[in-house]
């Protein structure tokens, strides 16, 4: 520690160069942390899936509904335990929540967007043990067509409690009703066990599909069907059997595991993991060269001083250690700055209207820097600093005092 002031003074010697190097390092760690957080969040979404659940949807696109009658037919397939229909409601809180009357249609407020699903409540909650809802609340929910069940995170976000009323209006035209937004009453608040079910998001609202169906003139189909199966090992066999049922119908289906279904969203952006890791690696390598170059120049400029230190009795190892420490210090400063900037960006994204909605739609509403990613980013910065400083330090280690003193 007694050498720290000495190191800091050297870093301040050419503050402009040091600042630029620290900023370059910070940019590297910022990108690393941000990209890895996005990847971790996406992987978290995939972790929140179950091997016991399949998803059956329209073979062409998620945009098209499948007939409600498919539910009963899927249920008849051997190996299927239960079936729950699901529709992505796409509702948003009306822009003027306080003044809005149920009969008035209003502009949707996307700044407070959150995922909301219309489902078959009984089979849905039976096949989703991730959502822990007290039985009496479930009973209340089933007894009220306008009832809604919300996740804990959503309840905390809006300060909603049991019995509260709110209105949602969908941006999907078939999900709108002529007399204005849908009215919902909070009948249940569910929690989840983050240890047992990591990746389960509670920033979500669930309501009875029957409400949507009745209110929109009984013309809606199902967005998709969640299918719980008896044996995960037979997922492929069951999926093929389901799709075979509708092979010759107008609305052919595509059935896959819930994980494959979730992964298909990620695949829409190409091989995201490879792309993000590739960017991270390229940036890291570039910054390594930048910092190594800076340290080389710094050491070259100080050859005489290094000779003086050695003359005073500093061992070559100690001199080498001081140079590496200086480089690592740049890494530490840059790392801390990069991690802070990454966390700041996450906060900004999750608190900026519009972007916040987009993230919520992707299931990334809780985007934040994970401690493991931050630790990895910091370790990366320290490692980069070490590697960048090692070669110049080794040169200083090897250099003879008499040779360095002759340097002009």
């Amino acid at each position, binding site marked *: 520690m*007694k*050498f720290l*002031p*000495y190191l800091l*003074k*050297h870093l*301040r*010697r050419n503050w402009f160069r040091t600042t630029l190097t620290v900023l370059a390092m910070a940019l590297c760690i910022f990108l690393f942390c941000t990209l890895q957080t996005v990847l971790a969040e996406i992987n978290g979404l995939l972790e929140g899936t179950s091997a016991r659940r399949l998803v059956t949807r329209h073979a062409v696109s998620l945009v098209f509904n499948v007939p409600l009658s498919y539910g009963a037919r899927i249920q008849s397939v051997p190996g299927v335990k239960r079936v729950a229909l699901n529709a992505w409601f796409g509702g948003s809180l009306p822009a003027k929540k306080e003044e809005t009357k149920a009969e008035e249609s209003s502009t949707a407020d996307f700044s407070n967007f959150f995922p909301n699903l219309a489902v078959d409540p009984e089979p849905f909650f039976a096949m989703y043990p991730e959502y822990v809802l007290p039985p009496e609340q479930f009973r209340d929910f089933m007894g009220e067509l306008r009832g809604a069940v919300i996740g804990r995170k959503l309840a905390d976000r809006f300060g909603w409690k049991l019995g509260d009323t709110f209105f949602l209006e969908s941006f999907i035209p078939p999900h709108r009703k002529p007399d204005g937004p849908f009215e919902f009453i909070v009948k249940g608040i569910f929690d989840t066990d983050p240890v047992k079910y990591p990746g389960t998001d509670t920033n979500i609202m669930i309501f009875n599909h029957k409400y949507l169906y009745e209110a929109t003139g009984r013309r809606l189909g199902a967005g998709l069907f969640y299918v719980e199966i008896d044996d995960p090992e037979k997922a492929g066999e069951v999926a093929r059997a389901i799709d075979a049922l509708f092979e010759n119908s107008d609305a052919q289906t595509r059935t896959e595991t819930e994980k494959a279904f979730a992964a298909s969203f990620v695949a829409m952006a190409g091989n995201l993991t490879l792309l993000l890791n590739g960017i991270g690696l390229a940036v890291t390598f570039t910054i390594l060269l930048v910092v190594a170059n800076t340290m080389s120049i710094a050491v070259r400029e100080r050859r*005489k*001083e290094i*000779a*003086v*230190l*050695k*003359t*005073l*009795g*500093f*061992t*070559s*190892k100690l001199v080498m250690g001081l140079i590496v420490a200086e480089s690592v210090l740049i890494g530490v400063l840059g790392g801390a700055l990069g991690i802070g900037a990454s966390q700041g960006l996450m906060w900004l994204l999750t608190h900026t209207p519009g972007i916040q909605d987009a993230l919520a739609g992707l299931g990334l509403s809780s985007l934040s820097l994970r401690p493991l990613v931050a630790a990895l980013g910091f370790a990366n910065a320290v490692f980069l600093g070490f590697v960048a400083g090692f070669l110049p330090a080794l040169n200083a280690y090897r250099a*003879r*005092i*008499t040779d360095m*003193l002759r340097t002009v």
Partner: protein
Amino acid sequence: MAMVDVRNVTKVYRRDAEELVVLNGLSLQVDEGDYAALMGPSGSGKSTLLNLIAGIDKPTSGEVIVAGTDVARLDETGLAEFRSHNVGFIFQFYNLIPVLTATENVELPLLLTHLSKAERRERAATALKVVGLADRASHYPRQLSGGQEQRVAIARAIVTDPKVLVADEPTGDLDAKSATEILDLMGTLNRDFKKTIVMVTHDPRAAERAKTQHHLEKGVLRD
């Protein structure tokens, strides 16, 4: 008793196939408390001899015994330790660290000791007082004159209370007045603080201040 005992030392520099004999079987003794001046033309080997005495270089053959230690037998780490305990080096161009204040420059060798920060600061202040720069303690090298810089360098050299002070043309970069002040200071260190001093110089006036003078020519002592 000899503080510095150089016995039959040869120093050869090799560059590719070429061999340059800088010191050729040289022997020299400097007694404890002596103030010796090494003189000679450029390339005579006086700075090389000084480097051997200071333990920053090793002879090709022969013995260099300083304060009872044969420098030639020490490895890299041993030499560094030897220098930190026994030698104070005064350079021609001062070689202060520009980002450090006078106190911090003087304190530098003490970072290798187990002294506390307060003790280090106290000793650095004492050394600066000895060289008459107590009032310049917080000044950076760029804020000091050449003579003052050299005095800070001398304070740095004496702060660990070394047995031998070696000076490589300490007045070579100074005007006459500053050179006189530095020579006065070195005389004081020798006379009042009993420091053994070995000084390389081209300047006859500086050499006159020394108690003994040695002349080198082509790697051997002439007298």
